[in-house]
């Protein structure tokens, strides 16, 4: 796993060539703000200041009018009796969003940690703090205890699409189409969920994907949309191949890109990766969002070259490296994405401070316990 496998990471060869780029009226700029970093600990007493990029601004020229929405995902709630840390952070995000009063909020999946009804109901209660319209897509942690039954009852089904002020928003379900890894092994629902719960597990395999039925729905849904209409695809997993061993992808990304190919202004906003990510493939750009719960490390390979990585986080500070995002469409400026990372500045300036540089070159192996036949 130390080097990028040429067959596995083929997207840039297939889709990242010179033939197609996102809408040529799009430009990317990064606002800056004052970064203050104090190195503490008694041994080194120093302060460094610098101008670091904070906000990724993606300008899209065709947005008809202003729309502002907030993204929250990956709250991974445990019951309050076990852990209030994640509850506290989700509460903070919801409170801040309510104060902001955006046009709507999108919840991008993984409300619960173990898909337990107690966790999903807790999340439902907490979400009442947000009074603006809310839209939902599921994460794998919400799904595999009861195969999405309670999730859909509480938060509705997906896929869905909505036209809001000239922008076509689509919510996709990238988690509900896992190959059946449980029946032959006669797993209980808890065991099935347990394998899904471990990001680096291999038993659940390449579970992220849209599946044929949803691909056909997407194709059909977009047929009525003009080719230059701004389209936003909300997904839990990224719609490109970043790091399949952790399902930082959808397995049918080729088909997705084939469907969106005729459209010049497509933005994929996704969760699951718990980190700052930016990528462009063909006519589609992808923006990875923060989790409120905890940050994942950057994978040892496959981080898109266009990503300015976020700064390495402090594991002793539960509010570091996490947060939510404010996304604004304006007719003048297009899409502004602002990461609301708590307690720290967002982007790393030097490799030594970035999770990407830090993890590059590791030779890692997948879990050994998964290879034990327990059933």
């Amino acid at each position, binding site marked *: 796993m130390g080097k990028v496998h040429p067959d596995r990471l083929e997207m840039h060869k297939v889709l990242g060539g010179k033939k197609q780029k996102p809408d040529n009226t799009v430009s990317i700029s990064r606002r800056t703000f004052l970064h203050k970093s104090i190195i503490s600990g008694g041994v080194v007493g120093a302060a460094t200041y610098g101008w670091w990029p904070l906000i990724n601004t993606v300008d899209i020229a065709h947005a008809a009018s202003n729309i502002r929405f907030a993204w929250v995902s990956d709250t991974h709630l445990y019951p309050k009796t076990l852990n209030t840390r994640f509850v506290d952070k989700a509460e903070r995000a919801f409170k801040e969003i309510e104060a902001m009063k955006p046009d709507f909020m999108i919840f991008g999946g993984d409300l619960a940690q173990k898909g337990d009804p107690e966790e999903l109901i807790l999340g439902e209660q907490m979400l009442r703090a947000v009074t603006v319209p809310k839209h939902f897509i599921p994460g794998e942690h919400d799904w595999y205890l009861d195969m999405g039954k309670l999730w859909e009852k509480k938060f509705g089904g997906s896929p869905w699409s909505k036209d809001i002020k000239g922008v076509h928003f689509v919510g996709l379900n990238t988690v509900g189409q896992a190959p059946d890894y449980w029946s032959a092994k006669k797993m209980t629902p808890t065991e099935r969920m347990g394998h899904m719960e471990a990001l680096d597990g291999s038993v659940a395999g390449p579970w992220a994907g849209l599946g044929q039925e949803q691909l056909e729905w997407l194709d059909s849904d977009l047929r009525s949309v003009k080719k230059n209409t701004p389209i936003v695809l909300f997904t839990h997993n990224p719609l490109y191949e970043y790091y399949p061993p952790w399902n930082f992808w959808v397995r049918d990304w080729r088909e997705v890109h084939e469907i969106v190919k005729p459209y010049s202004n497509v933005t994929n906003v996704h969760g699951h990766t718990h980190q700052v990510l930016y990528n462009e493939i063909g006519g589609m750009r992808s923006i990875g969002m923060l989790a409120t719960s905890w940050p994942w490390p950057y994978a040892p390979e496959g981080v898109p070259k266009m990503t300015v990585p976020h700064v390495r986080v402090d*594991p002793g500070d539960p509010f570091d490296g996490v947060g939510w995002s404010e996304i604004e469409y304006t007719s003048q400026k297009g899409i502004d994405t602002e990461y609301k990372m708590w307690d720290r500045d967002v982007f790393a300036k030097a490799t030594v401070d970035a999770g990407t540089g830090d993890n590059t070159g590791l030779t890692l192996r997948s879990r050994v*316990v998964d290879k034990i036949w327990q059933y």
Partner: protein
Amino acid sequence: MNKNSTKVWTMAAASLFVGAVLLILTGPVSAHKKNHSSSDIQAFDDAYMDVVKMGDALFHGGGPQKELGVTLTKTGMACAMCHPFASDVHPHQFPKFQEQMSEVAGLREMINWCIEKPNEGVKIGIDSEAMIALEAYIMWSHKGTVIDPGTH
């Protein structure tokens, strides 16, 4: 813990017992006194991999924590939640200056720091079975990574 995993851990414990008996019978006294047979090498590898497997399970929030008398977390968080494939542990860089502790620390000290701080568990013995298992799994996960001590 379900029946199957109990069975697996019983087998693992039995293997460790057999390994210990082998060690007593053939280990310290006769180590490296004669050429190793392929079955010797296999037995060594089996004993090692049993510890790695235990470390994998502990690292992912399972394993025989109760039997070992350890509490690696009180928050429900497991090591692997921040360190999938044991990434971002960087065992090849230890010992190194660890900012959180303001001192040069070894991997085992850092493991204990993570157990106590983010996981809010109870730190474990520096030479305990659980610590060696966690270290074994982390190092196994990084086999082939170039040693780079002291790097931040």
